[in-house]
């Protein structure tokens, strides 16, 4: 009973985390599902989003403006990966890893900017965490109010942001340009034969995707009250987990593109609810990476194993007959 009660009490918080990570999952959906690229930049981009947003807020910026700058920083990271891949011919995975690695150093520098401006030479040149406090900083949202029945409950804002992002993506991928990006991922040979610049489109997709991931990082930093250089570690796997959970559970039900994006967000929420549950069951927070990797491996294997099992079953029926 106690267990259920404490699990129930932590559900709203998990919901908030899931929604914020849902934006990241949409970003992963765009690259992994639409462009057919595995983009590992996102581990760095998530931290960059958090770092840029947090440092600007501590410097007294308006949190919305800080969020916008975080998104732009993320888009820039996507641009770098995109150019490494298309203009320099480096495989997509490696391009992402290179940008991610570079971002690690940059993120440490970014978080120190506030102190350096304030304290000058006395300040440390790098910083690995940056705390935010709802009482002192003007935040858009905070997990502190997640169980409150009031307008400052962060879930309200998160739901609105997720809805706006899905609507925007739905519109964008229905435009001529958006359709040409989908064609680029679906069949690059055909796309080029139809006059589509597939290199430019890949870059564009990576830019949009990383912008969303940075937005996710910026919201997470505010929600949890700190940005850390490690907050994005393993993010790609969590994003993939969300996309895959959403797909496995809802693919049959959700046919429309907007609903498919929503499925990824729901996947992220489910992921965090499950994580909360297992934490209550006594696992350590540090065990989560192992658990996540296992969840993703299982869900990635399901479609493959199902197919193999099904075709085997079919064959057996045939030989029986």
């Amino acid at each position, binding site marked *: 009973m106690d267990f259920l009660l404490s699990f129930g009490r932590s559900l709203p918080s998990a919901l908030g985390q899931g929604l914020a990570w849902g934006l990241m999952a949409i970003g992963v959906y765009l690259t992994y599902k639409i462009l057919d690229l595995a983009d590992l930049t996102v581990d760095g981009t998530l931290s960059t989003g958090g770092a840029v947003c947090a440092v600007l807020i501590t410097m007294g910026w308006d949190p919305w403006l800080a969020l916008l700058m975080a998104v732009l920083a993320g888009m820039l990271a996507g641009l770098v990966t995109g150019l490494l891949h298309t203009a320099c011919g480096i495989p997509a995975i490696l391009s992402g890893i290179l940008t991610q690695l570079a971002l690690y150093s940059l993120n440490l520098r970014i978080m120190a900017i506030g102190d350096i401006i304030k304290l000058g030479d006395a300040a440390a040149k790098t910083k690995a965490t940056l705390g935010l406090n709802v009482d002192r900083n003007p935040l858009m949202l905070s997990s502190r109010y997640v169980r409150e029945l009031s307008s400052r409950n962060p879930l309200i804002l998160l739901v609105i942001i997720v809805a706006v992002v899905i609507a925007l993506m739905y519109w964008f991928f229905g435009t001529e*340009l958006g*359709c040409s990006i989908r064609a680029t991922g679906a069949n690059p040979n055909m796309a080029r034969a139809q006059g589509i610049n597939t290199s430019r489109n890949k870059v564009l997709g990576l830019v949009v995707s990383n912008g969303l991931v940075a937005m996710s990082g910026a919201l997470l930093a505010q929600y949890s009250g700190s940005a850390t250089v490690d907050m994005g570690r393993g993010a790609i796997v969590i994003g993939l987990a969300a996309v895959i959970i959403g797909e496995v559970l809802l693919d049959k039900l959700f046919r429309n593109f907007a609903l498919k994006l929503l499925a990824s967000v729901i996947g992220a929420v489910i992921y965090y609810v499950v994580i909360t549950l297992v934490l209550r069951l006594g696992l350590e927070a540090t065990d989560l990476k192992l658990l996540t990797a296992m969840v993703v491996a299982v869900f990635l294997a399901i479609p493959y194993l199902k197919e193999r099992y099904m075709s085997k079953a079919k064959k057996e029926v045939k030989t029986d007959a």
Partner: protein
Amino acid sequence: MLELHNVYKTFNPGTVNEKRALNGIDLTLNEGDFVTVIGSNGAGKSTVLNAIAGVWPIDSGSIVIDGQDVTALPEHKRAKFLGRVFQDPMNGTAATMQIQENLALAKRRGKSRTLMPGITRREQEEYRELLRDLGLGLEDRMTSKVGLLSGGQRQALTLLMATLQKPKVLLLDEHTAALDPKTAETVLNTTDAVIEVNHLTAFMVTHNMKDAIAHGNRLIMMNEGKIIFDVAGEEKAHLTMKELLDKFAEISGSSIQSDKTLLA
């Protein structure tokens, strides 16, 4: 309409896999020419088409389409001049996109892609009519994913996509080879009709000698990266299978009889 001047292409130069695939191709297609291309496996037929389409840069020579030198243009910029249908039915369409979305993509070939809607209601009506003309019942499945179509249906759709914007040159690379004989014939008839109605200039690679003789107003034979035989007009119209076989033996010094695929 299409000119190739002294085009050379060597794959994997300087390695053990070095392969001179185009060995000085000179070719001029006049407007309205419908050329069929034959030659044994590895003769360089597909490579010529890929050179025209700009899949990779050529080593030397030049390619001119409709008076414009396109030698330096990348593939996607040449696309506005070209309609293409590939041997593999999977290649010409986006399987995970709808039939009407594929058509809308092709409709915008050569135009810049803006933030306007990817497909309009007016277009849908237009496509419905065009699909009805194909006679495959696709007009009732416009929102189906192309991946659900059969190979023949996909090739017919690709053909429609290739000609939705009238191309300066239509490039067909054994586009019926992966189809069963009956479907192949249907698609080939559709091809004839499309070329005729739109007065297209076309370049059709085939492995089937009978088809090569029966279709088009000009026939080219390739061997080892060279054009070894080129007939047009009356001479082409009266060409027989035997003459063609003899010609091949005479010019290449080997017998085509051994090349079963060419006789298929």
